[in-house]
């Protein structure tokens, strides 16, 4: 299993090699790791410091100072058998894209070596996968996987849009993203999804079915059955929808968890509308608390869930590629690694990437398109990138843009803390007060 530490590491590559892969997310409570990392390190970085399974490959991105030291600590103290550093650039010029494409090729070669070593000692995946990145079979798998993920991201983008329309709750959106992440890793989609010949085809259909069910229930235009290979998948997901297995812990998706009818288009809309921004949201609880406090969360600009999925890898098309380029054309010239590097480096910028004003402009567009009346900024405690990001956004959106903003710092589990709920209620009352005086839209 490949566990990635950052949304800038393409899952397409391990999946195309038949290796289950997912973005690593964790849940409280976490074991202390103060023997290895200082107390003032972000909770997400500290969560990596644990004994990982011998079959896990940790792909650590140089996202920040903290993650660079996590890489060192995991290797030095032997917390994982395989730890790989993915040198994600901070910029996205064409030279940076070329450089990153080279980094991704190396990453693929490394994964082949590790997979074949592990395969000799355990059945990590079925033998039907390429053993060299120049192998046309690998190219086909990578292209197919990239297009499947492009399709999945399109579906998720539709769901995220319903969040903006107030028809899907923020908690549901995070739940779906977490479940898609787990299904891609073949964790909860059942054994048979592991190591399919065409990478995770069933896993992708299971993900689409889950997204469809949320979109369908929220009154969004449900895709006709050809969108999911067979109608059965949609029904199957209907039952799964009420009980979601995430990792080894089972929790119920928001719709049924709070016993309320899946929100119709009006219920969330009349509430004060807030966007959430963060480096890493850590877990869904903060969003749940905001909604419990009576706020309507209309976007979640965090690598959990938006920034993992709200982009597309250009030039490769989607599952039903007839809609844009013929197979031969897509197969013929697009160098898939360059497309991946381009798509990932130029996706909506997170606070780590150095995109000058682009991030501020991106947040302005999110606020304008969603009609958010305020912004809740979540900073994982001791996340420097979040502290810098908040200061920049507060100056650009808060002071100049007159957008009410609050900063909530937290650790794992603090999303449910009483103090978070109290602050959320206070923020809601302030927003409602200001909108009744016509101060904010």
């Amino acid at each position, binding site marked *: 299993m490949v566990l990635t530490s950052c949304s800038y590491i393409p899952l397409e590559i391990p999946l195309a090699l038949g290796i289950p892969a997912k973005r690593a997310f964790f849940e409280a409570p976490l074991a202390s790791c103060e023997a290895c990392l200082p107390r003032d390190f972000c909770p997400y970085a500290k969560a990596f410091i644990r004994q990982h399974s011998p079959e896990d490959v940790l792909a650590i991105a140089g996202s920040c100072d903290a993650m660079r*030291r996590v*890489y060192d600590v995991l290797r030095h*103290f032997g917390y994982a058998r395989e730890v790989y550093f993915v040198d994600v650039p901070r910029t996205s010029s064409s030279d940076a894209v070329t450089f990153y494409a080279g980094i991704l090729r190396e990453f693929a070669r490394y994964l082949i070596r590790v997979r074949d070593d592990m395969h000799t000692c355990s059945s990590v995946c079925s033998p039907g996968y390429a053993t060299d990145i120049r192998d046309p079979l690998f190219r086909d798998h990578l292209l197919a996987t990239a297009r499947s993920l492009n399709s999945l991201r399109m579906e998720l983008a539709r769901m995220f849009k319903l969040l903006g329309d107030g028809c899907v709750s923020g908690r549901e959106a995070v739940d779906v993203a977490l479940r898609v992440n787990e299904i891609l890793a073949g964790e909860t989609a059942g054994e048979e999804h592991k190591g399919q010949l065409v990478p995770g085809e069933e896993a992708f259909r299971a993900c689409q079915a889950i997204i469809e069910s949320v979109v369908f229930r929220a009154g969004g235009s449900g895709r006709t059955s050809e969108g999911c290979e067979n109608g059965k998948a949609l029904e199957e997901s209907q039952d799964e929808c009420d009980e979601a297995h995430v990792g080894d812990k089972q929790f119920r998706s928001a719709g049924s968890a709070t016993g309320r009818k899946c929100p119709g288009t009006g219920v969330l809309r009349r509430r004060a509308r807030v966007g959430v921004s963060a480096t890493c949201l850590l877990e869904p609880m903060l969003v749940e608390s905001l909604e419990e406090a009576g706020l309507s969360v209309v976007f979640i600009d965090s690598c959990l869930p938006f920034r993992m999925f709200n982009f597309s890898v250009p030039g490769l098309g989607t599952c039903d590629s007839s809609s844009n380029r013929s197979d031969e054309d897509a197969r013929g010239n697009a160098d898939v690694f360059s497309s991946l590097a381009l798509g990932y480096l130029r996706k909506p910028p997170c606070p780590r990437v150095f995109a*000058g004003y682009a991030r501020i402009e991106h947040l302005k567009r999110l606020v304008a398109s969603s009609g958010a009346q305020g912004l809740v900024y979540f900073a994982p405690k001791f996340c420097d990138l979040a*502290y810098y990001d908040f200061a920049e956004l507060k100056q650009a959106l808060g002071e100049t843009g007159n957008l009410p903003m609050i900063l909530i710092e937290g650790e794992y589990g603090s999303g449910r803390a009483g103090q978070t709920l109290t602050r959320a209620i206070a923020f809601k009352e302030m927003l409602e007060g200001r909108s009744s005086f016509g101060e904010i839209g």
Partner: protein
Amino acid sequence: MLLRQKWAYAAASAALPFLSRLGWKEYQVAAVRCFMQDFAEAYLGRKPCIFTSAFVPTELVYGLGAVPFLPEAAGGLAASFGLAEASLSACESLWYSPDLCSFHRSGLGAFALGLAPKPSAVIVSSHLCDGGKRTLFDISRRANCPFYILDVPYVYSDGAARWLAGQIESVARALVREVPGTSLRNMTRAIENSNDALAEYQSVCRLRRNVPAPWRGSEALNYVVLFLWSWGSPWLPAFYRCLRNHLQAVVGAKKFPVPEERCRLLWLNLRPYYETRVFRYLEDECQASVAFEEYSFPYWPRFDAQDPFMSLARKMMSNFGWGPATQRLAAIDRMVDEYRASGVIQFAQRGCRQSNGAAAILSDVLRRKGIPFLNLDGDGVDARNASEAQTLTRLGAFLELLERKKGG
């Protein structure tokens, strides 16, 4: 403000000769003269002033005919002139968290208070840490001047070095277009100045291996600001020549600052730059000398004046603080051997994740080498985050440990 007054520099230059009579050493007077010259050019606008983050090679700036200004390093200077608290609260009023590294906050705050010169441009690099880039981006917005980032690959390869060299060259050419008064005419001169200074400095480093140490580590840690700020300047070779002569004289006359050295320390990261008893306690009361400091280690190869941009790229990528921690450990291991350190102290600057994050690994590796290690929490700029009593207690206990170990 004094630094913006022409007469102030004239008066200071006139006063310089008196410093020697007051007992200042020649290299100390040379350092003041050099900084005064650069500050005059920056504050009086005689040359374009380019702000950089700490590990952008300043040869690039001098090579463009400009003068550098490093807000992070200036943050340390602000602390030594008692201006830290004002600059830190100015930064916090701009919504920056007090959990961030105070060198960055103080640099930005000092700029917001108008204590810094006016930048013609800002160049940051993605190394060594996350902080510098963001504060300097904020400064470039406030000053409405061009902003450039050098994206430094994490692991050396020829391809990676070529990419970085290409970035450096395009930033240099863009600056020549955008900032009046800059040109590439001075680049070869700056590279040669740097090579000359490096040769002199390597002699200084060899002299500092002497036992006892010929130079107070506490003072050497003050000159780290010069080590970050002045490579490529016309006056750095002469400064290091002065320092070399001084150390040679000390060794010759056997007039060592800590004559009865009971132990030799390697100091990692920076130091408190405000008034503190820490080094008087170490060097005078306990006869423990700081033999060398991590941030004074000359880690880069000589430059090739015919290939300046690749040389600058190699300098950036050979920084042992950038890349897997194994590189930093190897450099520290070499310093421990070369300066015969019996103990290593890391000044754990609050909020410095990139350095503090390696403390457990450092402790483990040094323990196996038989070298005691102390991770000493502190804050180099914000005295409010430091407890001197606790620091002295921990230092005392550590020195006792070294004594016991020496006793066998």
